[in-house]
């Protein structure tokens, strides 16, 4: 009785949801009949609706209903019932006298072979000829992360995902097959056939992700293919009853490491020592030092961040309509106070079948993200919230007698709490997208798909801050008149329209698929930015009318027109050949360079389908692949080809007459009207082997040459009167490497295991850099500058500086060594015992810029990941390890925490040189440390690490329980992220370092890789989640 009540309630609930749903989706119902044989059809324990059930050799039959039930009339005794459903093996059951059946369908071995989404179509995995990695929904949701990009980390060889910051909502750096350009290396992201943003997509909505890596696979995307292409397919409803999926998790985030800084007595000791070494009086007497209290500044702005991720989706469908509706809410707090992120995602994917040949559908998405960030942008301590606090003098109390913020001693710094209170950096983005399509099958072999996808997005940023260098007045207050408000408002509108006509024909053992297509995109972005200064103290939360405001902005249209074609030929599933061609025209180039042609060809041989292997009990699959293609990169700004005349107030050419502005106009650069795409030419060879049913191995070798990489080139001479750079297609970059993936899958009764491992080794080299100076210097950290170089014959952005060779232990060693001017304006400073011995590379007995050499590389020798999944009865456990090996980090932390007397030290500084034999790595402490802090390998650390990225332990409630609860599935899980890290980077907070945002640029830049100026570290996450299917 009780059960019935629950049942009724449960049904009412479902009906109520259905009513809601009907508001969104027209549902066309299917009626079931009633008769003598009844039964239920399952797939893996879950009722399977829409299964065809018919009596063999007759015309009478039916379909299973929403709950997998069927009822069939007039079934003769001893007749055979046939169950069929797309994607499953047909099953025949001989009926005796039974009237009730329970059938479990088995997946079709043919369809077990995954269907892989390729550009503008899909192929069976066995038909692939290019290098494509596929990532399933299962793998994506298993990582307890909120962004789809993060979820890709370690999931495919050759795909590198590195967190740029532990800031909630921060977009990671993603690269496919190395750094192919000095410019934008972001892969092209296609969501359900149209370009999109991977960071906007809710991981729970993803059905699968394919990563197209080599040019033969990406050439169908032509000018967008050079950085690789990521294809995201979102979920769709399946025929069947309404299925409600709820995934809810909550958890906490904590900082993994803290810096081990000195207590006040140790600090006073080092300060006194440094002052004494410099001939200055000590600051603290022994008695004073002993009496100093110690305050823990470093943790002042830390917190335990709360995390929640709530996902609900409704899906189902009938013969005529299917639907998938989802809503997701994520709220993440960072490990630094007042840094957080939240996101709402809504998605409605519907498809309507007009008849057997025509269907149309739409995918509607809306997302809102709201991010509050802490400082993480500048060269110095005070602009890096993650480490700022640790550097504070440990004996200072947090507040002065009046309750004001304590001021630092003899330096400028921002109080960690003042920064939390006065520094606001808020960024809100909203994105709406529609993807509407019609799909027509006709003339038996033809298919036509037209997709129209308009979208718009907005971004509003409000950044109210204390400028770097703000000092605090005596009363502990902030110098209010230095406050600055910066706002940014973006609006983006655009559409993509594509039309693809496909012809597929099987003639005997010849199988041919051909497509031609057209695509056009138009978009426009409006950006306006304002800066407000002179804000009166009385206004705590200013707007742009609160002071003196200047504005800037832009309106940037873009149009792209493309035609493409692909022909695939397959003979007897043995010999495969694919050719593609794309013509792209883009408005960003001059008239003569607008259209580019991007061809590719690839072939594969399914050796296992040859007679001599057909019956092999060892080899299940053996496939050889090879491909060649040319692709482009057009992420290079717009209208770069135009000969520009600078005019208007921001041109700098205005002058003053009679105290008023008078307009001027002139050119600052020569034009390069033949600016065109960066072009990558790549070859790929691969082999896929599976054997003994349980093992599979894929190995790929690739060689990718980026030709005509765009570089800004200064005018040939200043006497020409030109001052600004012009972009030319002149650099060449090569990436080559190996990718391996190995997997093992086996079931031993109740125990199942699945193990996969990925590894890639990529060798990056700039092969030509046609620039006068021969290199591009970049990088700023603390007082260190230009420590990264991009130069022919070296990897992009390698580390460059002086090489150290220990510490001078005594006067004799100093006398034997070269002079070290250190500071050109003070040439007379001489080395003393305890100073760093730099290597005099050119033997001229002077340490200067000419002695600089390569001191490291941010590029790893190899990256790897290991996935281990186990299940035993109701339990499942997965472990995911991810690592990089052989890369270096250039870190400013030794400068901040081992060299600077004005702020606190890490414990490692206690190992400094204090006399002969005391240290051969850390120099003596001095006030003027110029000589010992020169750009050198002192700042280069091993960046290798291995991380236990994810552990997840799940429990599936058994059938008895879920039946009683009237749910289809109930799983609870515990998950942890970044639980254990093995690394040698003990000076910093986190060895996982991506790119650094340049202060003057809008995005990550390949010219500063692997730089740690006090990165916001990755958090350790612990969470508990429930997965419920109704």
């Amino acid at each position, binding site marked *: 009785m009780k059960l019935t009540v629950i049942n009724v309630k449960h049904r009412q609930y479902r009906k109520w949801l259905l009513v809601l749903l009907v508001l969104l989706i027209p549902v066309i119902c299917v009626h079931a009949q009633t008769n003598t044989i009844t039964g239920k059809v399952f797939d893996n324990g879950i009722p399977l609706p829409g299964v065809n059930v018919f009596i063999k050799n007759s015309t009478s039959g039916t379909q299973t209903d929403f709950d997998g039930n069927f009822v069939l009339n007039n079934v003769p005794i001893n007749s055979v019932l046939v169950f069929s459903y797309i994607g499953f093996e047909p099953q025949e059951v001989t009926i005796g006298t039974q009237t009730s059946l329970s059938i479990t369908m088995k997946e079709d071995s043919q369809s077990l072979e995954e269907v892989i989404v390729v550009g503008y179509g899909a192929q069976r995995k066995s038909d692939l000829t290019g290098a494509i990695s596929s990532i399933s929904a299962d793998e994506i949701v298993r990582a307890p992360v909120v962004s789809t990009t993060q979820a890709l980390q370690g999931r495919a060889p050759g795909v590198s995902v590195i967190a740029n910051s532990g800031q909630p909502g921060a977009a990671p750096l993603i690269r496919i097959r190395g750094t192919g350009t000095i410019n934008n290396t972001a892969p092209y992201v296609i969501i359900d056939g149209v370009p999109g943003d991977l960071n906007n997509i809710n991981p729970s909505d993803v059905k699968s992700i394919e990563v197209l890596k080599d040019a033969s696979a990406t050439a169908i995307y032509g000018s967008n293919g050079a950085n690789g292409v990521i294809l995201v397919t979102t979920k769709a409803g399946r025929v069947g009853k309404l299925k409600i999926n709820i995934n809810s998790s909550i958890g906490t985030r904590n900082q993994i490491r803290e810096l081990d800084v000195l207590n006040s007595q140790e600090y006073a000791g080092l300060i006194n020592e440094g002052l004494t070494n410099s001939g200055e009086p000590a600051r603290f007497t022994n008695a004073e030092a002993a009496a100093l209290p110690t305050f823990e500044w470093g943790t002042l702005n830390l917190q335990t961040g709360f995390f929640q991720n709530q996902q609900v989706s409704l899906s189902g469908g009938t013969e005529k309509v299917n639907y998938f509706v989802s809503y997701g809410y994520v709220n993440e707090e960072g490990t630094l106070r007042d840094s957080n992120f939240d996101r709402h995602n809504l998605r409605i994917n519907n498809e309507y079948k007009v008849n057997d040949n025509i269907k149309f559908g739409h995918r509607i998405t809306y997302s809102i993200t709201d991010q509050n960030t802490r400082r993480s942008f500048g060269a110095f301590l005070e602009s890096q919230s993650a480490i700022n606090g640790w550097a504070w003098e440990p004996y200072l109390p947090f507040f002065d007698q009046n309750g004001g913020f304590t001021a630092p001693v003899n330096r400028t710094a921002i109080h960690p709490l003042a920064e939390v209170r006065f520094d606001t950096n808020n960024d809100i983005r909203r994105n709406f997208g529609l993807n509407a399509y019609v799909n027509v099958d006709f*003339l038996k072999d033809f298919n036509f798909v037209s997709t129209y996808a308009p979208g718009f997005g907005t971004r509003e940023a409000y950044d109210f801050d204390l400028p770097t260098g703000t000092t605090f007045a005596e009363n502990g207050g902030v*110098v209010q008149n230095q406050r600055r408000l910066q706002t940014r408002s973006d609006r983006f509108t655009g559409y993509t*329209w594509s*039309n693809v*006509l496909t012809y597929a024909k099987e003639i005997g053992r010849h199988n041919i698929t051909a497509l*031609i297509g*057209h695509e056009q995109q138009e978009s426009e972005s409006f950006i306006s930015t304002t*800066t*407000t200064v*002179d804000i009166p103290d009385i206004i705590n939360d200013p707007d742009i009318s609160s002071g*003196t*405001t*200047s504005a*800037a902005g832009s*309106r940037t*249209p873009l*149009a792209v*027109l493309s035609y493409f074609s692909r022909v695939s030929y397959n003979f007897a599933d043995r010999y495969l050949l694919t050719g593609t061609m794309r013509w792209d*025209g883009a*408005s960003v180039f001059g008239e003569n360079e*607008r*259209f580019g042609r991007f061809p590719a060809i690839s072939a594969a041989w399914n050796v296992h389908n040859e007679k001599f292997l057909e019956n092999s009990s060892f080899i299940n699959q053996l496939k050889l692949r090879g491909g060649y293609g040319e692709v482009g990169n057009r992420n290079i700004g*717009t209208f770069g080809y*135009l000969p*520009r*005349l*600078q*005019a208007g*107030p*921001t*041109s*700098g*050419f205005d*002058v*003053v*007459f*009679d*105290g*008023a*502005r008078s*307009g*001027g*106009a*002139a050119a600052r650069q*020569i034009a390069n009207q033949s600016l065109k795409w960066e072009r990558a030419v790549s070859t790929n060879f691969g082999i896929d082997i599976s054997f003994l049913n349980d093992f599979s191995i894929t190995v790929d070798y690739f060689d990718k040459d980026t030709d005509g990489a765009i570089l800004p080139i200064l*005018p*040939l*001479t*200043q*006497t*020409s*009167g*030109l*001052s600004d750079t012009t972009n030319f297609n002149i650099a060449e970059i090569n990436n080559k490497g190996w990718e391996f993936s190995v997997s093992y899958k086996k079931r031993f009764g109740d125990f199942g295991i699945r193990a996969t491992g990925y590894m890639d080794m990529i060798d990056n080299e700039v092969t030509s850099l046609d620039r006068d*100076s021969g290199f591009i210097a970049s990088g700023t950290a603390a007082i260190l500058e230009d420590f990264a170089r991009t130069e022919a014959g070296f990897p992009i952005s390698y580390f460059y500086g002086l090489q150290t060779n220990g510490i001078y232990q005594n006067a004799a060693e100093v006398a034997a060594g070269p002079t070290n001017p250190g*500071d*050109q*304006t*003070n*040439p007379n400073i001489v080395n003393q015992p305890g100073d760093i011995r730099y290597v005099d590379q050119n033997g001229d007995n002077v340490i200067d810029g000419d002695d600089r050499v390569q001191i490291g590389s941010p590029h790893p020798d190899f990256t790897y990941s290991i996935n281990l999944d186990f299940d035993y009865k109701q339990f499942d456990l997965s472990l995911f390890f991810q690592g990089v090996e052989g890369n270096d980090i250039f870190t400013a932390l030794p400068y901040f925490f081992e060299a600077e007397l004005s702020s606190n030290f890490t414990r490692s500084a206690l190992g400094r040189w204090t006399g002969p034999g005391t240290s051969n790595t850390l120099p003596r402490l001095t006030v003027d440390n110029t000589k010992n802090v020169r750009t050198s390998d002192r700042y280069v650390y091993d960046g290798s690490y291995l991380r236990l990225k994810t552990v997840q332990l799940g429990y599936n409630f058994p059938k008895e329980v879920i039946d009683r609860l009237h749910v289809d599935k109930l799983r609870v899980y515990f998950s942890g992220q970044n639980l254990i890290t093995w690394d040698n980077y003990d000076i910093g907070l986190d060895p996982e370092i991506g790119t650094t945002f340049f202060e003057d640029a809008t995005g990550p830049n390949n010219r500063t890789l692997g730089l740690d100026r006090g990165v916001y570290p990755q958090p350790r996450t612990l969470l508990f989640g429930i997965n419920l299917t109704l």
Partner: protein
Amino acid sequence: MKKGIYILGMLLILIGACKSDEFLDTTPYGVAVDTPGAFFRNQDDALLAINATYRNLRQRYAAFAGDYGYGNIGTDDAWKGGGNPADNESLAQKENYTITPTIGEITDRWGQSYQGILNANKVLENVPGIDMDEALKTRIIGEAYFLRAVYYMDLAKWFGGVPIYPKNLATPAEYLDVPRSTEEETWAFVEENLLEALSRLPKKSEYEAADIGRATQGAALGFLVRANALQNDLPQVKQYSEQLFDLGEYSLAPTYKEIWQSTGENGPGSIFEVQFTEAGQGWGSITLGSASGTAFGPRQGNDNYAGWGFVQARQELLDEFETDDPRLDHSLFFVPNQEYGPLDADNNAYFGKKVAYAPFTDYPIPAVPTDGSNNWRVLRLADIYLMYAESIYQSDPNTAMEYVNRIRQRAREGNNALLPDITGLSGQVLLDAIYHERRVELNLEGLRFHDLIRTNRKSILEQYGFQVGKNEKMPIPQAEIDNYGGRLPQNEGYSN
């Protein structure tokens, strides 16, 4: 039938999308295009082009790169100052003459002059063909000659002989084929251009108020005086000075103090000024102001001021003033306890009022530190008087003394107990009196360095590390030496 419709429909879609040319022509918003026919179409374009030619003067005198730094530092008039001895590498190297060819000051000075020359040449090549008001056309061409002369004069003064481009060349590569001219040739080109300018430019009084600040006949003559003084060609100094006096356009401002106030800008004694104003529109290149007041103002002592502390007067300059000379107080102000002040052990410092904001002048402190509205007084009548006096001190000592005394009379502000007229002097004594008056009257106006060189008093500079035969000129920027690949010889004494 049905099939036919499908196929037709699809072909239409594919073909309909083929009009590619129009589709791909998107509008480059905010971009003005510099192609033949798109610019220099009319009078307005001509004005835009000539205005832009003034821009490098504004850039030059907006901060460190102006003569306030390089003309004063390294002489007996001024310390470098700043936050510490190493603060600002370019200025530090000038202070002790360890100048290297890679510092920004050298590179900027060179590059900005040639930017101005490029734009002057564009005007000279394109404006004559424009159908426009003839008087305006003549004036604009005159301004272009004037500015081209000013930029080449700056190059000749600091670098010596340089490559001369009387016309713009078609490609940057062709510029590399033009060798360095001699210093004499460069000066000759400067004078030639000033004379071309002189024949075309209006007088100061002939300009509308809105054009105050443009080149004038007086400015062309004034620069001819200065150019000849720098070449030590005294007869020419005399001749052009007298031509300038004959214009009847200029007189000494009634008081010394008013020259350095906002109300004194472009006053009766002003021959040429670089014009600045506070754009009041926040940060960025939108500013039309000068950073001088901030760069050369005190770091400590006034929170609102928040200067950077560069260029502090030396004791030798303070000592040069006669007792109670009111010009000391109008030119310099004392601020104690700077972060770095080499004057004395207490880090006290004297800064110049000639570039200062309130309360030291009536110029307001700008909202953005680099956006001060102080004009830079490039050439004043008093300067011409004193150069004129130098040119005739032997031939006509009485007239020479008369011109010196005009300056002293104004300086004493009616208090006859001060600064008595000089009388009865001649020869070296008179010349020294002229030099003395020049140093005091034009203190910290960026002239001292070249005054000492052109009058061969280099020994005064040698105590600071100045090397005779080398430091008269700056090194050519290393980047340019590299660009020219051996075709551009470096100046004497500077290694590559």
